[in-house]
Structures are given as C-alpha cells and as structure tokens.
C-alpha cells in the first residue's frame, strides 16, 4: 500500500498518548466507551450469524432424515448419516475425493518446488531479466484466469489430448503466482548477512535455500501453502471443462452435476446435496482452522499488494 498517502504519515512521536486518557468531543472522559463496545459486539455478532448460519444449516441439513425448507429443518433431530451414503451412491465420494486430492497435491508440490525456487531467486539472486519476471508475476495476477480458459481448453484438451487426465487438470494452476509472490516477500525479509556468511563458507544456493532460508520461512511457507490449497480444491470451471469421465471428476465437479441433474435419484435430495457440500467444504475449513494462527491479515495484505 502506498506509504505516500497523507493519512499514513506519522505525526511526531511526542504526541503519543494512550487514547483512553483523551477526552472525547463531549469533553467527558470515557463516557461513550461502554456504548461503543456494545455496538461493536452487536455488529460483529450479527455479522457472525450471517456468515455462519449457512454452514450450520449445511451440517444440520445433511444429518437429518428428511431435509426441507421448513423452519423445523434448522433444528437437529433424528440425526442420521443416510444422506452421506446416498450422495456416495450417486457420485462415489471416495473416487471424487481422490481426484480432488491428486489435483490439489499436484498443484501444491509444483508450487512448493518450483515456486520456492522462483521466489528465492527473485528475492536473493541477481540475474538478467529478474525485473521482467517479477513484472510478469504481478501482471499475471491481474489477468482474469477464466478469460484464458477457452484457448487453454483448445490447447490442453484438443491439441495435447490431455482431457480426462490429471496432468491436464493440474497444468493451468501448477505454479501459483500469488504463492511465488509470498515466498519472495518472505525471503526478502530474512537478514542478508546470513546468506552472505553461508556463501563465504562455500555453500551452494540450493543448500542455502534448503538449510537456511526454508526453515526460517516455515510459518510463511505454511500460509502460502494454505492459500495454494484452496485454489485447486475449490476450482470448478477448469476441471469441469477438462473432465467428461465421471471417474476423473474432482468433487466440486461431481457435486455440481449432482446439483444440476442427479438430485432425483435419491430419497432425500437436499440432504444428500448438503452432505456432499459438507464433504467438499470440510478439508479446506479444517486446514484453515488448524493453521489459523499462521494465517494473519498481514499475509493477505502482502499477497494482494501486487
């Protein structure tokens, strides 16, 4: 974010005082604070309900014997796993999950290996064309990916014959540019002297990267991986185009086809749909909750600065 903005300019440090000592505009100290706090909690709680209710409904609806739009459907009762069996019978959850997993892990591996190399080179190594590569990285983040799907479809499916193929599913996402950007930022922050010392000791760049840079950047790498994970795991359009064979479809695609034309095949279609949605949502949500600590707003901020 531009530091030149007047609002971000710092006033002289001497004016620093804890804000609670200051009178507000009414001239009375701290009178409005309880009211302000209550307002904050109200706003935040209303927000939280609006955000969490659909998730709650998703879970409860997936566990009921019959799921309807009736208000009573929001209350858990007679919980059963039958919707999960039903959706599994219709779209074979295991196979879809496996396909989602292979696609996501492929992307993660490529981003981890090639993305870390590129990020390290962009941060710590000097080479001809570095500026150009970095500029392209920023540019690529501005190009709406869906716009490239048609030519990519022609190339990957028609020309290379990679339809219904894991390689074809992975290719367009193989190296996540946002992650490369994050890796670069993290490697830039590490103290230069460490690298110089290792170089004087005769360590090669690969060794420095592996032994020094990566271990120090571990939390950062973790959050970049989480960011990379949700992309291919949640992606719909590309795998939808590339996979026609149901055995090759990742869960997002098979669930979408269940949503649009298979619902009539099961007893409690809404329940089954919500069960599928739960299975699709669970891994990303679980990973996020698990690694939340590492996933700070500053990362997101630096991730979108480009």
């Amino acid at each position: 974010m531009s530091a030149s903005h007047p609002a971000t300019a710092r006033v002289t440090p001497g004016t620093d005082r804890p804000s609670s000592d200051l009178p507000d505009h009414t001239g009375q100290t701290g009178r409005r604070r309880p009211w302000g706090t209550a307002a904050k909690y109200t706003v935040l709680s209303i927000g939280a309900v609006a955000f969490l209710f659909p998730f709650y409904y998703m879970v409860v609806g997936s566990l009921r014997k019959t799921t309807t739009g009736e208000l009573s459907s929001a209350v858990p009762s007679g919980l059963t796993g039958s919707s999960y069996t039903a959706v599994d019978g219709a779209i074979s959850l295991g196979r879809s999950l496996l396909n989602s997993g292979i696609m996501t892990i492929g992307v993660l591996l490529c981003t981890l290996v090639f993305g870390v190399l590129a990020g390290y080179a962009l941060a710590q190594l000097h080479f001809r064309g570095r500026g150009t590569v970095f500029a392209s990285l920023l540019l690529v983040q501005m190009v709406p990916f869906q716009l490239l799907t048609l030519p990519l479809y022609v190339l990957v499916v028609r020309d290379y014959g990679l339809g219904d193929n894991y390689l074809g599913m992975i290719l367009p996402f193989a190296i996540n540019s946002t992650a490369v950007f994050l890796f670069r930022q993290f490697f830039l922050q590490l103290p230069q002297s460490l690298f110089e010392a290792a170089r004087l000791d005769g360590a090669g760049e690969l060794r420095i990267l592996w032994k020094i840079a990566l271990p120090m950047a571990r939390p950062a790498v973790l959050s970049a991986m989480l960011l990379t994970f949700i992309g291919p795991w949640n992606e719909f359009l590309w795998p939808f185009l590339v996979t026609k064979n149901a055995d090759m479809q990742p869960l997002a695609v098979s669930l979408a086809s269940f949503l649009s034309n298979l619902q009539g095949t099961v007893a409690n279609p809404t329940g089954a749909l919500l069960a599928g949605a739960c299975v699709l949502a669970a891994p990303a949500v679980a990973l996020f909750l698990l690694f939340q600590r590492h996933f700070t707003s500053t990362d997101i901020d630096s991730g979108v600065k480009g």
Partner: protein
Amino acid sequence: MTKLRPTATVTAGSTATAASGGATAGASGKAAGIRHRRARSRTGALFVTPYVLFLALVFAVPMVYTLWISVHRFYFTAPGTHVDSPWVGLSNYRDVFTDPVVGRAFLNIAVFLVINVPLTVILSLVLASALNAKIRFRAFFRAAYYLPYITASVALVAVWQFLFGSDGFVNHILGSHAPDPSWLVNSHLAMPMIAFFVTWKQLGFFVMLYLAALQNVGKELYEASSVDGAGRVRQFFAVTVPGVRPATTLVLIYAIITGANLFSEPYLLTGGGGPDHASTSPVLLMYQKGIEQGHPDFAAALGVVLVAFVLVISLVARKLSERGN
C-alpha cells in the same frame, strides 16, 4: 562489494555469463565475490526457469492464441487432425457486438458491480473497524468471516439454492411476502442474488484487507481529530475512509475482476444463466457459445472484448478512487 552488471545475456537455463570489465579486483575476497555473483546469476536464472516456462505456457501462449482464433474461422478438431482456419478479419467481433445476449451479459456485470462494490466496501469497512478494537473472541469473529471465502463455491451454492429456493428456508420465513417468482428464478432478482452471494462469499477477504489497512492508519490522527472535536462518525469519514483508500482501490479492482470471471454462480445458482439470460455472465456465454455450441472463434473474440472491458474499467476505477480525496 561493488555492484556488478552482467554484460552478456543470460538466457534462461544457459550458462553464458560474464562479469563487467571493470572487475580487475586485486583482493582475493573481491575475486571470490565476483565468482559467487556469477554463479548466483546462473543459479538465479536456472531457479526461475520452470516458472518462466509455466508463465509462457499458461499465460502468454493462450493470450496470443485467443487473439489468433478471434480473427479466424475456427473449428474444434480431434487431436492429430487438421482443418483449415481461414482468416475472417473482424467478422467474429462484429458478431459479438451485434449479439443482444452479449449486451445483456455486460449489463448483468454492471448490475453486479453496482450492488457488489458499495456493499463490499461498506460492510467490510464496518466489520473491520469493529474488529480493529481490543475485543474478546477476536479470533472467532475473524475465522467466522473468513470461512465462506475459503469454502468452495459449489458447496456454498448448494446451501444457497436450498435457502433461497422456491420451497426454501427464507421463503418459509417470509410466508406470503416471498417474491413470486422466487429469488433465483425471478428475472429481476436473479442477478442481484448472484451479487449478494458473491459479496457474502468474498467479504471475509476484504474484512482482512481493511483490517490490515486500518493498522497502518496512524493512531495520532484519531487523537488529533479527537482533540479538534471530531465525533466518531466524523472521525470515520475524515480519518478512516481516506486512510484505507488504497485498500478501497483494491476492492474496486478485485470486484471488477470477479465480475469478469463470474461463471459458477450463474451457471449453478440460477441454472445456466437464469430466466431469459437475466444472469448470464460473459464467461458463461463464452462457455455456452464456445464449447456447448461449438463457436470457439466467437468465444475468443468475446474474451478479447472482455479483457479490454476489464482493463478500461479498472483504469477508470483506479483514477476515480485515487483522485476523489
């Protein structure tokens, strides 16, 4: 150490590197430094090669290919077979500009932006401001807001379809006040519903963005304005809003890109573009024309028009948000 400029071209992956002539270093440490730098230059180019290849293969080539397809009569062919693609000049573009559904799709994006942008800016700024204070359960609230952003569109669409379906939860609450035709099959409500869905799904991301931006707004400015007698509301508009302007610019650009990318929401939420193309998006149209109906040349021209549209709108948005101080 002096800065050295490699004078020879380091083509990606090649080993041709040379240090500049001025490096007649006497000290051995300096010579070692040059050797190191040369090696690092080679290594750097080598490290970045896979990524450069990826960018070429997945971005540069397809972009040029779209342009090429858009000025030819282009047919899908099976791998290995060859069919002529005659040059047709701008006729695909003429088809795009005369197709009424294309106009409708761009109008839909305009509706999307008109609802999505102000709603996103206001809601995320309010939530971020509330979250910026010292507050209990902060981690819980942050996680709650972020949850839809990290969850698959397809999963959330499934829930929304159920909540807002004709026989859905929301209509049961509204009873006789429920709209008829219902939310997602109503030609006036289909596109606004998509805009609300996307706003809700993405909001957490922008809350985080504003939260980070708010931490960069100097506390002193609040104190100074407070001393000058500004109330909370006044402070919000005089200090907070200008302070987070760069983030607002980002919201604008992201909203435009999201609008240009809309596909799964109209495809799944409103059954392939809704009643009478009421929620058809340009990308959905590209899919329908290009892949379903077999006119990839039309779709490519539409894609080029869309990119031009995105660039122009982004530039305008940027100018507006940076100037309006």
